[in-house]
């Protein structure tokens, strides 16, 4: 494992400790040993604009770091699951990081052109205007995976929305999708979320 990958994981652990303790978090870093980095300042500014406010600052930072970690661990051109009944062998896409970084820079440029200030310095409603302009005619539905996203904003949203925690928030119940657990529990209606939307 490359040193800066370890550093990233260490920072994630620090982040988790902050969440547990309710403290303020450092800005998310999105780097890894393969040079797959997203501009942390722009990514955080984007996250604050598109992720739910009700996650709170810490929740948004955790979601952002999760996305960055996901990107750091991504491996391009690995054989995908060939679906039952399909003979074709397909592969995961090329590294999305360069394109996503360019899109983050594009948000900054667009902000400067249209509002005279960098993206991160705009208020949230204005940032959303810029993101909306950048998304143009992207499909309304979020892709099931960030890899299906046409823009980094949708990739970030898709990564968060595909998490078990986000699904629980949407259904306001402790479903725990994708988590292995006791079979017998399945017969009961899932418990509601605790106040604040937690399990």
């Amino acid at each position, binding site marked *: 494992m490359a040193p800066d990958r370890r550093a990233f994981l260490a920072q994630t652990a620090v982040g988790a400790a902050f969440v547990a303790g309710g403290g303020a978090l450092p800005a998310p870093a999105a780097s890894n040993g393969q040079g797959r980095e997203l501009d942390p300042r722009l990514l955080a500014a984007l996250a604050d604009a598109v992720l739910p406010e009700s996650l709170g600052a810490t929740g948004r930072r955790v979601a952002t770091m999760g996305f960055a970690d996901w990107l750091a661990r991504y491996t391009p051109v690995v054989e995908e*699951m060939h679906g039952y009944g399909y003979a074709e*062998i397909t592969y995961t896409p090329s590294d999305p990081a360069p394109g996503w970084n360019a899109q983050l820079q594009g948000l900054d440029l667009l902000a400067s052109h249209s509002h005279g200030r960098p993206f991160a310095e705009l208020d*949230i409603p204005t940032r*959303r205007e810029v993101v909306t302009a950048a998304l143009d005619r992207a499909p309304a539905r979020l892709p099931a995976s960030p890899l299906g996203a046409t823009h980094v904003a949708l990739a970030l949203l898709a990564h968060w929305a595909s998490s078990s925690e986000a699904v629980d928030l949407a259904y306001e*119940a402790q479903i725990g999708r994708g988590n292995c657990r006791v079979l017998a529990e399945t*017969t009961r209606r899932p418990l509601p979320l605790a106040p604040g939307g937690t399990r």
Partner: protein
Amino acid sequence: MTRRIVESDVCIIGSGITAAMAAAKLAQETNASVIVVEAGGATTEPRMRTRARARWMEYGESPWANDHVAAQNAHGTPFGFSPSMTVGGLAMHWGAVTPRYSPEDFRLRSLYGVGTDWPISYEDLDPFYQEAEERIGVAGAQGPPAMDPRGKPFPMPPLPLSHNLELLRQWTERAGVTMWSQPSAKNSVPYQGRAACQRCDTCYPICPTGAKYAPDVTFDALKDRVGLVTHTLVRRLHADPRTGRITHASANNTREGGAPVEIRARHFVLAAGFTWSPHLLLLSADAAHPQGLANRSGLVGKYLCGHRNVAAQVRLPVQLFPGMNTQHSLVTKQFMRPGKLDRYLRHDLRVWESSFGQDPRWRDESGAPLFGDALLADWRRRTRQGVARLRAYYDVIPARESELTLDPAVTNGFGDPMPRLTFRDAPESVALRSWSEESLRDLFRRLARAGDGTVISSESAAADIGQEHPGGGCRMGDDPATSVVDRDGRAHDHENLFIAGAPTHVSASCCNGTLTFAALGLMTAARLGREYRARRTPR
């Protein structure tokens, strides 16, 4: 290059679920020496499956490493064939849904005047179904006996109905459709050293705990009794031109520069699925058998069979929580046993929880952007009504021209022509197709109305040209002029060649075939086992 020679009493070609069942029965109940020859190698080992599952969930990466052999693939159909060649075969990533066929499936001509009767009955197969369920480990609920006849209870209690499925079961009951827990090769309780299911909900493509049966478990348990010869592609069977007996098989290592391997055995069992079994027989043509081995009838590779489905999503005024156990379903055999029919339509019916139409989105219907809490609120609003996914597989009668042929334009690394698959319906199924599919859509609408719901999506099988759960290509029968193997799977033309499982199908019912493949494999092994002395202490 040195030729490796492998010898045994019984050589089983292929290592999927049919081969696993046959190998286990022969090794445990007879004194025969058994080898299993597999073109691929072992895939992801059990201790790596949790990580493989995580990578699949996060990135879509295949959790099954090296599960196919380069350039060994079928062509001609956009759906119906999976190229898996690995120890355990395609059942390494099956969904483990294990319904039995119904008694009617074996008597279509007699009862309905369509298709062809099998030479065996449901009652003949019942003990082998039971044995397969016990060896694999099937959790199932006994349906109403009139719909779901069986000689003995399931070896395990059913997977419990989730909160969602119980609500959906009550709904279908109101519509007059009796449904129950789908039988599955997933442990509802600890079974034969494997843990109970933890509803990780990734049964397909990978179970991280081993609660779902996969054939590598059987081969691992048999490792002291069955020789597993991997990375060895059998390319020809050789028959004595006078006696018709198979004398040996020629193979090549799929690594190590393709080193030749000769396999000698008293009996050969071809258990390589509906594609590679007829493919090998056709490849093995010689001067005495110019159409290929076992092919006096000209039917090797013919009558490939399967079925199609019609599916729908129904919105219901009840809150569901999709994600509790997405891969488990309700099932009924009510429509597989319809009694007398004016027009032929037999089908199964399944119901799952669904999140269709509830996906998060960043724009609403008016095109207004949704970010932050507005996105979450919109998502929440659309989860308040439940959605059920319905699917009905319906029976398709195969045409003779539903076939596998050798395609000289596409070859593997050894220069062998690869198989070309063409699925075709018999004329009676062609004539009934539109009416059948509309009848199923009517059923879905009736179900929706019974629950004050709405059909919000309906689709016919995407696999328009291919078919699901395919079999056939070496169909069984009593008459050598109209079949390739007899009722036990023995080739009419070669007394020491057996063909087991999927390829021997006459028709493919209207539900998953894997349990029937396994049961047929056991039936073939039972017949072959009579050629050997019984072990004093069977399994």
